[in-house]
Structure formats: structure tokens, C-alpha cells
């Protein structure tokens, strides 16, 4: 019963989002088809294309046709890349997922110890340093810090590659995630190479979530310190380590989960810029180009992916919540 409710709600959101974007990309001034076909195109060919893409029909018909197309596995022709959007998604989505996954893992893995240490040693040097670095982290414009890091680590120091996903041939495609595929096929060169390519973009992408999650964990841990059940453990002489990392952290992290779920869409947005700066061949870069070029099928495709991902992430976060906090599980 509970699941049905949630599924219904999620479908509602998906439909709402698709309608919103659908309308948005069609009310643009100018003629994207003419631009796509180039200055040499004749009026005839432009009109022909318009008819082919269904742009001469009323908008609600267009929408229904589009939904029908999805069911058939056709997401429409992309004006920027001249092929079906589904193909583009299949090709570019893994790259973006890999990037976001690595960034998020980095952010959370670093934020937990930093947050805990800051809370346990409030107002110490480490705490202040953390706070300042966190503030810096959320204030950098991602495109600018990306460029600066390219200059510093790529060009000045020559340590890291600054564009692309890999140099040389990619590993054999099993999951399309270079890191996993290269490990599975024991292709260590490809692993190391793709890892190096991920470092800079992932670092830029994780700055903002890292700062937010650290601050949140710190605040939650401090909140835990005044809890009665912690006092009971302290009075029993339990080890400080157990109290901090088992008793307090569990509660602190659970409260941080909703924010972490909320941060992933934010990361996706930043990815649009980061992939552009680092010429990372992911779906976000395609999305940015598509929006600017009024590639409506491309934009719809990307929107679909984003909203489905949003729904999935929300679902996962809710489930994780129930696992970590038995009160939620029992309420159901």
C-alpha cells in the first residue's frame, strides 16, 4: 500500500517534469531546424524536416506522440548529433554516472571523518580550518575553479590530464563504466588512465557537497552530544571511540541522509558546467549543448534521465533511512 502510493506520486512528478520541459523547449523564438540544417538549406527541406519531426501538429498531440515514441524505444532525433537520442544516452550516460558516483563517494567519505573530528574538537584549529575550507568550497564558481585547476595541475605542474575521459583506447565494454570494466578485464593501464582523468573533474564536483555534508555532520554530532542516551553511555564509562563512532555517528549520519539525497540533483546541475570545462564526454555536456542549441529531443531525453534518476535516488534514500533507523521501519 505504501509502495503504491509512492510509485503513483513519482509517476506524477515524472509526468509533470516532462510536460514542463516539453513546453519549455518548444516555445523558443527562432527556428532550431533551420539552424541545424545549416545556411545552405532550402525552405523545402526545412519544412520537410518540420513535418517529419511532427512540429506542425498541435502541442498536446506532439506530447502524446513523444510518449508513444518512448514506449517504442525511440526518443527522437537529436538536432545537434543527428542520431536518435536513445543512442546518445546509452553512449554518454555511463560517463556521467561514473563521474557523479566518484564525486559523491569522495565527498561523503571525506565529510564523515572531517565532520566528526570537527565536532569532537570544537573551536580547535582543525575545526576552524574545516569551517573556512568548507566556506571556500561552496563559494568557488565551478567553472572557474575547474579552469584554475586545469592551469595548475595540468599545465603548470603537468601532473594530471585536463580533458576527456581517457587517452588511448577504452577498456572492453561490459558495464560501460571505465573503472569497473578495466578492473574486470585486468586492463590496469586503462584503469589508471581513466582514474587520472576523473580526478580533476570529480574534485571540482565534490567541493560543494563536501562542504555541506561536513557542516551537517558536525552540527548533527554536536546535537548528539547533549542527548541523554549519550550521557548514559558516558556514565557507564564506555569508550569515547565507541560513543562517537558508533552511537553518535549513526544518528548523525541518518539525519544527514536527506540532505545527501538532495545534493545529488545539485551535483547533476554542476556537472553540466564541469563536463563542459573538462570536455568530459558525458550526458551533462550533451545536455548543456542541447539546451543552448534548442535541440528539443535532446533536451527531453536528458530531462527524462534526470527525473528518473531523481526518483530513483529519492527511493534509495528512503530505503536507506529505514535500514538505518528502525523507528522508520517500524512505523510502516
Amino acid at each position, binding site marked *: 500500500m505504501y509502495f503504491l502510493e509512492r510509485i503513483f506520486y513519482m509517476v506524477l512528478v515524472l509526468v509533470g517534469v516532462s510536460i514542463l520541459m516539453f513546453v519549455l523547449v518548444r516555445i523558443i523564438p527562432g527556428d532550431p531546424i533551420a539552424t541545424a540544417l545549416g545556411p545552405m538549406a532550402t525552405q523545402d527541406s526545412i519544412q520537410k524536416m518540420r513535418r517529419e519531426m511532427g512540429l506542425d501538429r498541435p502541442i498536446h498531440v506532439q506530447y502524446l506522440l513523444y510518449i508513444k515514441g518512448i514506449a517504442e524505444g525511440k526518443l527522437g532525433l537529436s538536432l545537434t548529433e543527428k542520431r536518435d537520442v536513445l543512442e546518445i544516452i546509452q553512449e554518454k550516460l555511463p560517463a556521467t554516472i561514473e563521474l557523479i558516483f566518484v564525486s559523491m563517494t569522495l565527498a561523503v567519505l571525506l565529510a564523515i571523518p572531517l565532520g566528526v573530528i570537527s565536532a569532537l574538537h570544537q573551536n580547535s584549529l582543525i575545526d576552524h580550518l574545516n569551517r573556512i575550507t568548507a566556506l571556500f568550497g561552496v563559494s568557488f564558481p565551478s567553472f572557474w575553479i575547474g579552469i584554475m585547476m586545469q592551469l595548475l595541475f595540468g599545465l603548470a605542474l603537468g601532473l594530471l590530464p585536463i580533458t576527456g575521459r581517457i587517452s588511448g583506447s577504452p577498456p572492453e565494454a561490459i558495464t560501460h563504466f571505465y573503472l569497473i570494466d578495466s578492473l574486470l578485464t585486468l586492463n590496469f593501464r586503462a584503469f589508471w588512465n581513466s582514474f587520472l582523468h576523473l580526478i580533476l573533474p570529480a574534485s571540482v564536483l565534490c567541493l560543494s557537497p563536501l562542504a555541506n555534508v561536513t557542516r551537517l555532520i558536525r552540527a548533527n554530532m554536536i546535537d548528539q552530544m547533549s*542527548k*541523554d542516551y549519550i550521557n548514559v553511555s558516558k556514565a557507564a564509562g*564506555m569508550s569515547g571511540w565507541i560513543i562517537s563512532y558508533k552511537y553518535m555517528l549513526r544518528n548523525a549520519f541518518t539525519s544527514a541522509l536527506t540532505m545527501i539525497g538532495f545534493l545529488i540533483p545539485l551535483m547533476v546541475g554542476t556537472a553540466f558546467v564541469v563536463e563542459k570545462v573538462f570536455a568530459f564526454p558525458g550526458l551533462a555536456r550533451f545536455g548543456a549543448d542541447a539546451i543552448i542549441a534548442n535541440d528539443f529531443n535532446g533536451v527531453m531525453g536528458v530531462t527524462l534521465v534526470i527525473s528518473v534518476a531523481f526518483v530513483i535516488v529519492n527511493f534509495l534514500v528512503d530505503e536507506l533511512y529505514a535500514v538505518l533507523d*528502525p523507528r522508520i521501519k517500524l512505523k510502516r
Partner: protein
Amino acid sequence: MKENIIVKIEDLVVHFKTIDGVLKVLQGVNLVVHEGEVVGIVGETGCGKTITAKILLGILHIPPAIIKNGKVIFLSQDLLKTNQTDREALKQKIGYIPQDPTASLNPVFSIGTLMVDMILWKRSGQHLGDYLWKRRETSQKKMAETYAAELLDKVHIAAPKSILNKYPVELSGGMRQRVLLAMALIGSPSLLVADEPTTALDVTIQKSLLHLLQEKVKEERLSGLYITHNLGVARAICHRTYVMYAGSVVENGVTSEMLDQPLHPYTKGLVNSIPKLTGEQFQGIDGQVPDYLNPPPGCRFHPRCDRRMEICSREFPEMTQVKENRSVVCWLYH
């Protein structure tokens, strides 16, 4: 009553730093608990009784609290001067029963997890490596669970083994408090510190819990420090009681004797505030609890005292030992 002293608090002075200034809360608390007796601390909310208990338990947050002076001696060691490891070892000998059973059990862990953690920690002699190893060992875990079930049985919880798998939210208030009592008994402590443990419970459960406490104290031969604002409870369960007002002890003695014939004007006022069945108009005590920021000079009770003298507003009274185990801190008796 044996003469072994379990707890001795001498001249404890504690201040609190806040945004508004320094609160001079504890003004010189003197307290003794002998082996085998239950000592009560009675007083209004805000008189400092919980702070005293917290210092004994080692759970007072030291900034913002500042311990200006005094000794807190437990089993012949001054807790204020011991290092962390020794302190942790001593904590094993004190059991704590907190006030609010709902807030005192970590909601995301099962009762079993909480109890086994404590049991194995005590068993490993507060050694982290040893604890971690024991925690992973099935046989150790089973032994700990058996012991936990035994303790739960001791506090009259039915079907103790099944309770181990439950979460605090699944238990009633009374059961949670019993679980806390069981946890306090882990490792056979010498002293039980109870901070108004029945306040958050229904009246009917209060009674049964009090009986349970008395029973365990006798069975396990524990000493007890019982904090309450309820004179009736103190009379029922405490051999001797200290009355605190505004950060210091004003009177102490054998409970029934002291409450039948109170010496200090404040104690008299407390006793008279209890509505009596004879239907007389009951009296409160005029005035309000003093401001710790700027406490009244001399005896802190003097502004509210109907028998104050000139010296009361100048100097803090010295303690007068009326007889063995009976003293009062008031100029009237000096």
C-alpha cells in the same frame, strides 16, 4: 550501618560560564554516602542536585562548567584528580539511572546491542582492541546475551530474551526504566545514582519501580544516591537525606527524623508545603529561587527566610553538627 565511606564530596564549588555571565551554582557542597545506605538529595528544580550527581558520574560538560574547588572522593579516590583511564575504570563501579527513560536509550540500536556493548566493554577491561575482538566473537556475544537476559530477569521483565531483540521505541515507559536499571546493574557496581527516575512515569508504575529499586539495593548490597524533589519518595527509600537549596546543603539527617522535625527554615517550608489530609491551608515559601548570576550575599536563603537575622545577609553560615549524622547550615543553630 557500616562505616566504610563510598562517596565523600567536600566543599564542591562549581561555576557555569554563560553568555550572560558566570553562574555561581554550587557553593560548597558537602556530602557523604556510607556503604549499604541510600542517601537522598532533595530540593527544588535548579538547586544544583543534578549537577552534583553529574559530577560524580563524570558527565558534566566541563566547559562551560568550571570546577573551582572541592573534592569528589569515590572509593578513596578523588575523581577530580584522576586521569581518564582510571576515571573510566571507576565509572564501571557506578550505575546510573536517568530521569527520562525515553530519551535515555539510543533509539537506533536494539536493547541487546546496547547491553552487550556495555557488558563486553566492562569485560575487556576498557581496552578497545580487546573489546573489538570480543564483539566479533560469537561465543563472547552469546555469553554477554545470557548475562543480559539474567539482568533483565532480575528486574522482573518477562521474556527477557525476546526483549533483547527489540528497539526502545517498542517498549513501554516502565519497561524502558527497568531496562535502564538492568543496565545500571551490569558489572555489579558499588554505587547506584538515580536522578529522579520515576518522574517521567505514571503513578502506578512509580510505586512498582520504587519497590524494585529497594529490592535490588538490598539484594546486591548497593549503596545509593537518590535525587528527588518528592519528600514522600525520599522518606520511603532513603535512609539519610540531604536538603539542598541554591547550590549548597542546608540540612541533612536521617530522613524520617529530619522530615518530622525539620531544623532549617527552608526544610520547614518544604515540609509545610505538602498538602495535608487534615485540610489546613497549605503554605508555600515566599519569594523565588535566587539568581545564580548575582546570588544574595551570606546565606542564599535569607531573602525568603522569616527568621533571618542581621548576620544572615553578611556571612555564609557554618555547619552545625547537631548530633551524629544530623547537621544544619544555619545561623539560628550556631
